[in-house]
């Protein structure tokens, strides 16, 4: 088994408390960071080639570097624990088993950018997980790891949990910031970017839970070590893959970036397809990722190879579909989600997602027309890249890929007047 970073303590019910974490090297990285200059922390993270684990894969060190050193208004660090991308369930495990790993990463990040306040924006449905976090924060305050004078260093930092209330779009960083500010979770117009004007008008960094949980390891063992874990030159460390759907062993798997192919993950690690069925399709990066066919899965699991293959690694939510399932039904369900979660601000997404859902619904019910497939492709194309935030792309990409890759199945629905597998 290769080296584990963020999943080191997974499923160990004793691991969550501060005492356990400290006994196993926890908060040593913070001590180290407190003796470093902020720019050196950022340099170390840059060296690590850590890329955001939330979905966009933006280099974390570079992101931190965008924060202006001097600011008249307070700066903030926000941990994105909204985990709303269907197929993704890794942050919940980190929060449950290693809350302090993430908290330590957040304190280090705040130190690096000069933030005295940070927030953990956790999706509202994670009620228990929010409680775990509150408890962990209490422990950290009691141990002097948070508060007015962290470990006697003079660094002051407060950290709070903020619960969402049910909206996928709050996983988008500016939607999240609006939600944190008590507003509708509508994404903001960019520029200005959060690094310049984010939470409450201050320069803000928004990082995913897993991204932040990697920070202590980077500080402890060095950016170079972390970078070398990845098999590609621009993507360091390990990655948590969330596997759901029709595999024998769904769950969380941590591997160094690009060290395992999608096929290996499904067949070697997850025990292959359940009930000895045949693989029909894989959505490799959360439901926003374009679908891949069985012959397209010999791709190393990392950001760039997945993009090259016409899909995306996204949040590494691997959704596996076997041959018992209808492709039209699957994409209809996914599209329903995006129509439901569209914030409604911008025209193509507000109107287009619902339109695509209606057409897909019609096709699934056997009332499709031969022209519907081209209509879907065109409507999706009219959304793709033309919306205010990435939700439009997230809705359009899967539709385009399903229609293109399962065209025959769509035709069968339309010609037969019903789902052929119904």
């Amino acid at each position, binding site marked *: 088994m290769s080296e584990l970073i963020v999943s080191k303590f997974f499923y160990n019910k004793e691991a969550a408390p501060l005492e356990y974490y400290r006994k196993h090297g926890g908060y040593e990285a913070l001590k180290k960071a407190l003796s470093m200059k902020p720019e050196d922390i950022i340099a170390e993270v840059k060296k690590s080639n850590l890329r955001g684990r939330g979905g966009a894969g933006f280099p974390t060190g570079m992101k931190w570097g965008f924060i202006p050193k001097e600011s008249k208004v*307070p700066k903030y660090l926000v941990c994105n624990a909204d*985990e*709303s*991308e*269907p*197929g*993704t*369930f890794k*942050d*919940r495990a980190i929060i449950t088993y290693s809350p302090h790993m993430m908290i330590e990463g957040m304190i280090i990040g705040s130190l690096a950018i000069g933030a005295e306040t940070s927030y953990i924006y956790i*999706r*509202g*449905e*994670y*009620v*228990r997980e929010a409680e775990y976090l509150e408890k962990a924060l209490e422990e950290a305050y009691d141990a002097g790891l948070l508060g007015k004078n962290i470990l006697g260093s003079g660094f002051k930092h*407060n950290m*709070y949990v*903020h*619960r*969402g*209330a*049910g*909206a*996928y779009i709050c996983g988008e960083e500016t939607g999240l910031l609006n*939600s*944190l*500010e*008590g*507003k*509708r*979770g*509508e994404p903001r117009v960019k520029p200005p970017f959060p690094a310049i004007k984010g939470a*409450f008008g201050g320069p803000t960094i928004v990082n995913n839970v897993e991204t932040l949980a990697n920070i202590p390891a980077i500080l402890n063992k060095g950016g170079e070590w972390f970078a070398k874990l990845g098999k590609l030159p621009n993507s360091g460390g390990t990655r948590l893959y*969330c*596997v*759901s*759907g*029709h595999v024998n062993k*769904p*769950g*969380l798997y941590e591997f160094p970036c690009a060290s395992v192919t999608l096929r290996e993950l499904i067949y070697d690690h997850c025990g292959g397809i359940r009930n000895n069925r045949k693989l029909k399709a894989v*959505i490799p990066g959360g*439901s926003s990722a374009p679908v891949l066919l069985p012959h397209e899965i010999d791709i190393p699991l990392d950001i760039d190879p997945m993009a090259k293959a016409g899909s995306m690694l996204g949040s590494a*939510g691997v*959704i596996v*579909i076997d041959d018992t*399932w209808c492709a039209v039904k*699957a994409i209809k*369900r*996914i599209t329903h*989600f995006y129509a*439901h*979660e569209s*914030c409604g601000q911008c025209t193509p997404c507000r109107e287009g997602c619902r339109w695509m859902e209606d057409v897909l619904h019609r096709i699934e019910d056997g009332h499709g027309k031969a022209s519907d497939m081209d209509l879907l492709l065109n409507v999706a194309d009219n959304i793709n890249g033309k919306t205010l935030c990435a939700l439009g792309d997230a809705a359009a990409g899967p539709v385009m890929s399903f229609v293109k890759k399962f065209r025959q199945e769509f035709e069968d629905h339309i010609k037969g007047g019903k789902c052929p597998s119904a």
Partner: protein
Amino acid sequence: MAKKQLSEDFYKGIEKLKPRYPTNQALLLPALHLAQKEYGWISSELMDEVAAAIDIPPPVVREVITFYTMYNLKPVGKYHMQVCTNISCALMGAEDLLHHCEKKFAIEAGETTRDGRFTITEVECLGACGTAPCVQINDDYHENLNKERLDKVLAELP
């Protein structure tokens, strides 16, 4: 203003939260969570009381509360069953599970049983895809479900 409906605890909770945020409006989501905890849902009167409690214009509460799915704008049963039917759960039989619940309680998703014990809501991804299908009952997740396991969970509810 009408008589206060929210408890001392609510107002104490708000006071405790205030130092966390630089603006009043940032208190809105936590305040609505606290209010919902007391009544299970949030009426127009409660919305106005929350607005007054954190000193923001009442229209803002309306805009925000209707944006999010977790705030109940009508009463829900003692047990609010939120059945995820998003793709990963659907692949693992969530639709059957939902229909099972609907049949069992003779209500449709979105409705509450006559005795006020159960409300069924079809919800989007709960972030428990590896342990699908998942049903959230009030604050707790129940995972790796099938009809039998869900029946057992329901039977054990007080």
